[in-house]
Structures are given as C-alpha cells and as structure tokens.
C-alpha cells in the first residue's frame, strides 16, 4: 500500500525537474482547454440561452414577503368613507367640466391650487417648458405641501397624479379620476394628526414631462433644455412616493407599475406592501402591470398562440409559463429601453422609492372607495418608516403579483453568454497569433513529417494597432450618429445609408497588414468579442434586461461573424450586419423618436448607449466580415 504512493506521486509529477513538470502540466492543460474550446463555447451558449428561456418557468421564483418590520402593512383601520367618495365625485365633476371646456393647463392647475387652498393646504403652480427636437413642450404643474402636525418637515411623502394617464404610454387618455382621488385624499388626510412626514401632493401636467420638471426643480438638478419656475413651497427629503393612475370609470384590478428611468427599480418592500394592502384592506386583486390573468377571469382571450396543440394549451405549467413570460417581457421591454412605465419612474433617480398604482379600467366592481382605502393604508405604511427602505431587494424580477426572482437566479444566464463570447474572443486572439508553418519547399517526405511533428505552429505578428483604431473609429462614428439623430435635421433613411457605407469607405484608408502578420479580420473579431462580452457582463449587474437584449442581439451574431474568401458573400454579410446594427433607424422610426425624446427630456441613456456602444460593436463585426 505504502509503496504505491511514490509511484502515484511519480505518475502525477513526472520525473525530472519539478518545475519543468509543472510547466509541462500547464501546457497540457492549456492544450486540453484549447481542444475543448468549441465544446465549451457551445455548452456555455446553450446553457445561457436556455436559462434565459427558462426564467418564466414555474419551477423558478419564490413568494414575495415584507422584509422591513417597520412597514406593518395593512395593520391599520381605514376611515375613508362614502362621504369622501362623494367629495371625490364632486371634484371629478369639476374636472370633467374643465375637460369639456377645453381648459388650458393653467386653468386646470389653478383649479387644483384653489381646491388645495380651500382646505387649508398651501399650494402653488409651476410653469415649465422643455426645448426638444419636436418643438417646445409647455405645461403647468400644481403642487401642495401639507405641513404635518408635530412633524419637523425634514421628510416628505409624495402623492401624485399626472393629467394624462399612462394608458398607451401617455396616448392622451385623461387621468381625471386619479387627479380627483389625489385632491379628495388631501382633503381627507388633513383631518388626522398622525402623519409623521409632510405630505406633498403633485398634480403634474402632461404625462411624464410635468413631473420631470417638478422633481428636477425640487432637487435643484439643472437640465439645460428645461426652463421651470423655482418652487416656492418646499419640504424635506422624499423617501417614498405613490402615483395614482385611474383613467377608466371603474376598475377590476389594481396594476402595479414600478420600472423607472434607466432600468432603476424601487425597493421591493414598497410594491409588496401596496399589493398586500390592496388585497387585504381594499379587497382588490393585484396585477403586475395591467396584465389580467386569463385563468382568473373568464371571457379573456388566451395569451397562448392559437397554433399550439390543445394538449399544451390546457397544460397548467404552459399556461403559467405564458403568464409569467408576458410579465417578464413587458418588464424587460421597459427596463432595457430605460423607459419609465409611469410617472413614478422619474423619481427613482433621486433615491425615491416610487410606484404607480394603475386602476385597470373595467366595468366594476371597484371605484374611489376601494382606491381611497388602499391609498390611505399605503400612506400609513409609508408613514411608519423610520429609515429609508433598505431591506428587501432593489434587483429583482417580478414574475407575478406575489412571485419574484432574486438576482442570483436570473443573472447567470446573461453572464454565461458573455463568458462564451469572451472564450470565442480569446480563441480568435490565439488563432490570430499562430499559424501552421508551411512545409519547407525542398526535401523529401521524411523531413516534412518530422517538421510537422515538431514545429507545426509558428507565431506571427498581430495587427493590434489597426484593429484598435478601427474600433475607436466606429465608436466615434457612433457619437456622430447620435448627434445626427439629435439634431433631427437629416431623415433617418439617409442616416442609415450614410452610416452603413461610411465604415467600408473609411476601411480603404487602413492599410492591410503584410502577409506574415495575421489577417486584420481575425484580430478585429477577437477584440470585438472580448469588448462586447465585457459590455454585456457589466451591464447585466446594472440593467439586466438591457444585458439580456444585448446577449440576444450580439451573442451569437458576433460570434459567427467571419470573413469569407468570395467577394459577393462578404458584401452580403456586411449588408446583413449593418441592418442588425442600424436597421432600427428604418424599421422602427417611432421607437427611435421616443428614445431621442426620452434622452432629451428625461435623460434616459438608452439612445446614446445604442448609438455609441451597440451599433459600433455590430458594425465592427460587419467590418470583420467585409475584410478579406
């Protein structure tokens, strides 16, 4: 037994110099990895993409819970009564009259201020105007600061309603009942001395623009294209905010919208508390966004595609998958674009945890009575806070109203794709650096065999500088593209053609490296893949949805990009990749316009990110294809 040990040791370490053995071992390991690289890549890609697809599966996710003990949601008796509902109806009548008179923003804001002043809450109006590509955007906000009894005024809660509802992302539907709720709620809340924080009521004009003007002015954050009147009433630090959106006549469900600008999310405790209160105090079922679950409500069209076999359609797991997938796709759509899913999203930037409660329009059974109770109880819960919301989660995926996924359960999918790209890039880098030595021109067969056995690979110089300058140039081009879009002077088709052709023309200026050095395409691809992988991995922590989108749009396409010996093939490949890089200019002009508006008015980074990071990266792959 003991005699076997030295033998094993010898087998492991090999004979001779231990250092040499170690180096040999390392070489062998690298060799193994190199030989297995294609399989590793395939495995990483497959697992990553499958993981992404599996996120909506019913096997994942856990129940939501309240982490912050101070919140105590739903533990209070609510006193909001039918008298208050009656008052809300009165305010609504006034608002409807204003609507029918085609009242200006000023008149509406003055009406709101008058209502607040009547109940003894100081209120003011704020005019603002934004300079945008599409012209000047003007409006008037009304806001009121209720100084709570005994409170020092160092903390505040914001209750807001925008004049336009979030229906259709601000398509012009009025949020009359939301505004009426806020005004009547102010009247009601003033009766109590239990508020520990000031209550700030904001009736913002427009959909997002009004609140953006108000909240940036409140925090003194300068925005060059915004001209807003300074606020003459002030309060303290805002910790939490709730935005009321009630566009219909009645509602059946309460939808919770929580995605903020640039992919920020509020603390999960806030939405958990509000949904708990809605269910238990208000008796209103809660939805993520406004997605009514077809399984709970008859007469709702199924969300499963019609072509699926009936056996699958009736499968509970498949149905659950479809419901969750719809929530996740909607969420990712907001988060990846950095768009706010409601007025609340503008506040996240200022470290305010905010959500929108959306009364999903229906013929019943709920109205002002349930909404008032829910809001009263939610405000009481927020009022309980002694600290900022800091327990619970800031990174999560809400797959259902009571189910969520922790960051650890979805983040690896994208990281795996990023790792696969990194390995591909490193593989290309090694490929670029080594070449099979051509057999010596003279000599017999024996000699050739010996040469191939011993010195089969030779190192060759890699044109790093050219590749890096091409990359830098494409990113500079991206900056130009961004400015061209921002100016709004050039039609997008022209921009598309210009920016698709410009790189190829510019490429003629780059001298092709001399034969012994590696082809430029390989080095460019190596760098491109490594950089894209880094971008995806870093983004995944900040904005998972954006990283997932990048992983889908760049993961495989960038990896399979390769040069081809035939000229026509290269041209076709280049064309395809430029469509992937710039196609959005022509294919979705409305989305482009929205992204530019979001950048100009709300400072959303999506448009510059796409122009300066995404498009150049795909263009680099296109160039790698076009190079011989």
């Amino acid at each position, binding site marked *: 037994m003991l005699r076997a040990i030295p033998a094993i040791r010898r087998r492991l370490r*090999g004979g*001779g110099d231990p250092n040499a*053995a170690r180096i040999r071992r390392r070489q062998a390991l690298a060799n193994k990895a190199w030989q297995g690289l294609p399989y590793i890549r395939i495995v990483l890609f497959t697992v990553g993409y499958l993981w992404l697809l599996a996120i909506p599966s019913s096997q994942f996710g856990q129940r939501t819970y309240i982490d912050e003990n101070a919140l105590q949601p739903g533990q209070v008796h609510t006193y909001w009564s039918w008298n208050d509902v009656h008052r809300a109806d009165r305010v609504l009548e006034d608002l409807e009259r204003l609507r029918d008179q085609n009242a200006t923003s000023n008149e509406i804001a003055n009406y709101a201020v008058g209502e607040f002043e009547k109940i003894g809450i100081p209120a003011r109006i704020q005019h603002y105007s934004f300079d945008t590509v599409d012209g000047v955007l003007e409006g008037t906000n009304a806001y009121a600061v209720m100084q709570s009894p*005994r*409170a020092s005024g*160092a903390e505040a809660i914001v209750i807001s309603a925008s004049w336009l509802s979030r229906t259709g992302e601000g398509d012009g539907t009025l949020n009359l009942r939301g505004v009426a709720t806020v005004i009547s709620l102010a009247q009601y809340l003033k009766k109590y001395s239990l508020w520990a924080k000031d209550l700030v009521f904001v009736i913002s004009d427009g959909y997002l623009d009004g609140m953006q003007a108000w909240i940036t002015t409140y925090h003194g*954050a300068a925005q060059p294209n915004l001209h807003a009147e300074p606020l003459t009433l002030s309060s303290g630090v805002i910790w939490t905010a709730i935005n009321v959106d009630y566009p219909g006549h009645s509602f059946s469900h309460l939808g919770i919208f929580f995605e903020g600008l640039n992919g920020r999310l509020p603390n999960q405790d806030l939405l958990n508390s509000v949904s708990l209160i809605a269910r238990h105090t208000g008796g209103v079922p809660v939805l993520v966004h406004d997605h009514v679950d077809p399984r709970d409500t008859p007469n709702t069209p199924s969300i499963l595609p019609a072509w699926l076999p009936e056996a699958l359609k009736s499968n509970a797991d498949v149905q659950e998958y479809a419901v969750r997938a719809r929530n996740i796709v909607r969420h990712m759509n907001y988060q990846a674009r950095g768009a706010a899913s409601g007025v609340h999203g503008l506040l996240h*930037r200022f470290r305010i945890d905010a959500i929108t409660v959306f009364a999903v329009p229906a013929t019943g059974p709920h109205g002002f009575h349930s909404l008032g109770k829910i809001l009263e109880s939610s405000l009481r819960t927020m009022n309980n806070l002694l600290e900022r919301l*800091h*327990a619970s989660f800031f990174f999560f995926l809400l797959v259902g109203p009571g189910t969520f996924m922790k960051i650890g359960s979805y983040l690896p999918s994208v990281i795996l794709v990023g790792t696969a790209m990194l390995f591909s890039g490193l593989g290309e880098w090694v490929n670029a650096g080594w070449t099979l030595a051509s057999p010596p021109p003279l000599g017999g067969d024996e000699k050739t065999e010996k040469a191939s056995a011993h010195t089969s690979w030779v190192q060759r110089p890699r044109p790093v500088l050219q590749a890096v300058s091409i990359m830098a140039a494409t990113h500079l081009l991206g900056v130009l593209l961004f400015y061209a879009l921002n100016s709004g002077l050039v039609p997008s088709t022209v921009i598309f053609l210009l920016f698709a052709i410009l790189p190829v023309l510019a490429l003629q200026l780059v001298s092709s490296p001399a034969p012994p050095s590696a082809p430029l395409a390989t080095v460019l691809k190596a760098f491109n893949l490594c950089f894209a992988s880094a971008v995806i991995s870093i983004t995944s922590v900040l904005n998972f949805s954006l990283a997932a989108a990048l992983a889908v749009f760049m993961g495989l396409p960038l990896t399979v990009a390769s040069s081809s010996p035939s000229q026509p093939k290269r041209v076709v490949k280049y064309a395809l990749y430029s469509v992937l890089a710039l196609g959005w200019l022509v294919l979705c002009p409305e989305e482009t316009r929205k992204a530019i508006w979001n950048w100009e008015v709300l400072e959303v980074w999506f448009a510059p990110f796409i122009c300066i990071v995404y498009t150049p990266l795909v263009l680099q792959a296109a160039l790698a294809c076009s190079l011989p």
Partner: protein
Amino acid sequence: MRWLSCWRASLVLVLHLAAVGAASEQFDEDLTIRPLRDGKLSARFSFSTLLKDATPRDPQQLSSDDEAQHYTLFPLALGQILREYAVTELHLTLNAGKWNYDAWGYPEEPGVGTGAELWAWMGESIPASVDQRWQGLRNALAGLFCASLGHLDEQRTTSPALTFQPEGSLPNFTYPHQLRHATLPSEHVCTENLTPFLKLLPCKSLSGIASLLNPHRLFDADWHGLGVHVRYREDVGVEVRLTFQAIFDPVRYSQEKRRDWSLRSVFDRSIERACPVARSSKVRVELPRGPSPYSITPDPTAIIDGVATYVVDASEEALDVAMRWPTEDTFEYPNTSEAPPLTELSVRRTLKGTNQAEAQLTLVITNNLPVQVTTGYLETMPWLLQFYLHTLRAHVNGVARDDLVSILSYTPPVPHSRPALLQAVLTLPPSSTLHLTMDVVKPFLRYTEHQPDAQRGWDLPPAVLVPFAFGEGQNGTVAAAHGRRPRRMYTPIMLVDLATPDFSMPYNVIIMSCTLIALIFGSVFNLLTRKFVVVRVSPASDAQAAAEQRQQQR
C-alpha cells in the same frame, strides 16, 4: 371639635409658610391665547418663579461648600443643578413641529427650533472650567427632563455669542462669562418630558392654569414645545420661567370644521380652582382683528389693547373661556399666496443635490417690508455637512449681489469632533428675495459613527436669523414699530443623507472584502517572492520515456 382645631392649626401653618414664601419667593402664572388667521390657536403657558435677592453662584467658589438653599416655591431639583454647575443663565427648549412664521407670526417664546436646544451663560473659573460644567449641566438636565441632552456633546457645542445674548444680566465675577450653545434636532418631545416639567411647578398640574396641561391634547397639537429659562435680574433675584407653547387646530377637532374654541374643547379641561401660592394667575386672550364678528364668554375681567384678561383667583366657579364666530358656518382658510406673511422675513432653507458626496445649501430669504432689513445669519453645522465657503453666492432677482453678505465669520469644523460656526450679516433690499447658495460636501463617516438607524440620515440643526436693523422707508412707522429687542427666527431643520454602508449584511461585506484582499495580496506576494529561472522543458513523451528508462535501469 378636635378636627376643627387641627384644621385651624394646619391653616395657620400654611398661611405662615405662604407668608415666608411670599417674602423671598414669588410665583406668577400666565396663559396667553391667540387665535391665528389660519384657524389655529396659539397658547403659551408661562410659570415664573422669582427667588428674590438671590445671586447666581460664583464659579470661583465651587471648591468650597455652597451656602444652604431653602426653597418653598422655587424648583429644588433645578435649583440644585444651577448651584452645582454655577450657571448664571440657562435656556432649554424641547420642541416638536415646524413653526410657520408666515401664518403664525413671531412666537411669544422665541426658542422654536425643532428638537432640543440648550444654551447657557456661565462664568469662567479656575477650579472647574466652563466646558467641564457644561458637560455636567447637560447630563444633569438630561436626567431631570428625560431627554437625550447628553448627546449635546462637543460635536454639537458652539459659542455664537452675538445671536444668543443674555436675556438677564451677568454678575461681575472674577472672570468673564462664556456662552455654550448646542442643538439636537432629532430629539422628540413627548409626555416623558412633560411629567418632570410639571413636577417643577409648585401646584403641579393640580390647580391653577397648569391644570390645563393635559398631555393627551398637548401632544396632539400641531406644534408644541416646552422651555426652561433661568436668568439673573440684577437687584431683583434669580428667575426661573417654565413655559409651554402650543399651536392647536380647533378646525381639526370640530366636526363642522368651525374654528370656535373653548378651554374645554382644546384642553379637554377647564380651570377648576386657582393655585393658592400664585401671586398672580391670569388668562389673556388676544381678541381677533378680522372682519367676522365673534363672541367671548365669560366676560373678561379687563380688556386692554385688544387683549381680554381673566384673573383666575377671583373666579368662584370653574373658568372655561370660549370664543365663537356665530356667523361662520365653516371656517374658510385664507389663501396662502395672497395673505401677507406676518413676519418681516420669510425664510426657506433647503439642501439640494442628487448624490451622496456633494450638495448645495440654499437659503431663500424674502424681505416682506418696504424698507431695507439687516439681519444676522447663524449656522451651527455639525461636521456632517462641510461648507465650501468660497462658493457662497448671493443673488437678488438673478443678479449676483455678493456685497449683501458682510461681516462673515467662520470657524471651520474639525471632523469627528467640532461643528462649524458661520455667522454673517445679510442686507436685504426692500421687498425682494435674496437667494444665498453654498456648495457643501458630505463627509464619509467611520462605520462606528453611524447611528443605529443608519439609513435615516442625519438631522441638521436649524439656522437662526436675527433681523436687527430696519432702514428708513417712505413711512417711518415701519421702522419705529420694531424698535424693541431683536427677535430670533429659526429655519426648519434638514435631513442629510451620507454615504451609508449596508449594515443589514455586515458579514457578507466582510467576507467579500477579505476574499478580494486575500486574492490581491496573494498574487502580488507570489510575484514579489518568486524567483525567475530558465527551465528546459522537453516534450512530455520524452520525459516519460526517460523515467521509464530510469526504472528499467534500477
């Protein structure tokens, strides 16, 4: 018969004691009620006890035994503290809420800063320095009033002698007097502070005006605060004045939203009997000047200058003053944007900014008078917020007017130990708004310095403004009306967010950072201690063959 004689004897004794007390001590109580234009009601209780011909203790004599003190009315617990630490003048206020100067005007008691404020004038001495006695004083008062005054340590103590001038006189001791001032804005005031406060009164809350001090109602008031003021009046004696000030909201209490009030509706009590040892006991009601007619019951003892006075000891039955506005169905709030502010200045102070490292302190002061006003401006800022003094800018209507800030004195903060003290004189042009801005940095705290509720942030003390000179306008009356002593104005407090670690998972953080450090250290150490040599590596198959050969040879 025996009971009667006993009763008589005790009566004689009480009268005798009262006579002795009256000779050297006197107690006056006073309640001032002021209906405000926004439907609220201001009430100020003042209980003052005068110790005749007494002088504050000379701190030079602290090493020798104090002369015996005999008090009948004067609060013993407080008197002992005053003697022990040789305090000449003392002001302690514990307030909750934000005083709304625009709608409520100047308060009767000027100290209305949110939270706790303590300031004292003490003579310097050799045996026990002012700072030592200041520490003892705040700890003793913390014990007496059940408040966290012990936190008013050197990190919060300053000496802004210009703003906090002595209200009495300072005796001529060996060394001059010094001021110590500290604020604790996060202190909450509640019934645990009121109970010891009531114990200092000669009649407690059993009789007299103090019987109205019903904690259930007082601590439901929109604003409330209690104060202890000790001063030395030359040739008169040492005076202790205990005050309670509150702003009630009768509209909130009333079902019909009316502003009618009575002592019973506001305090849920009436004055059943007078305090027998009080020299005077008065309820004053400031009569409203508004156009709507009102009635006040019962008939006041006297009406002087629009103030109705009720003398409490004279009334046989319970006193329940009531005021009603019979023509009003519901109270109509005045429009706040149209009603002129009641004070010369309107002040707003905010902290703006979006990140955890920097911010901007903004002070917006509106001069409501048609004449130029000169005001003192005081910031006693803990080092939690550090000023970039060179960025101090003044603007009026968007025009830079740095000349309006003068006589600037600044004591920079010492991180982890001393607060900053900024004093300046601001000149406010007539009927205009001055914007004062200054960049500030938020320091990085040691992790042990965070509060238990670390994610709350830190409450910062109020700034104090003292408008002291009113320039001549078109009508000289405005300036003349303000010929009295300058009054302090407190701004609201602020909350500042400092960079805060996630205390909810310290072990994760520790493990993570330790792993990172170990990795970095390990690799660097490995590289530093490694010896680089040339190793000849033959292909693996050769090495194996060589090994086999060696075995065969063996």
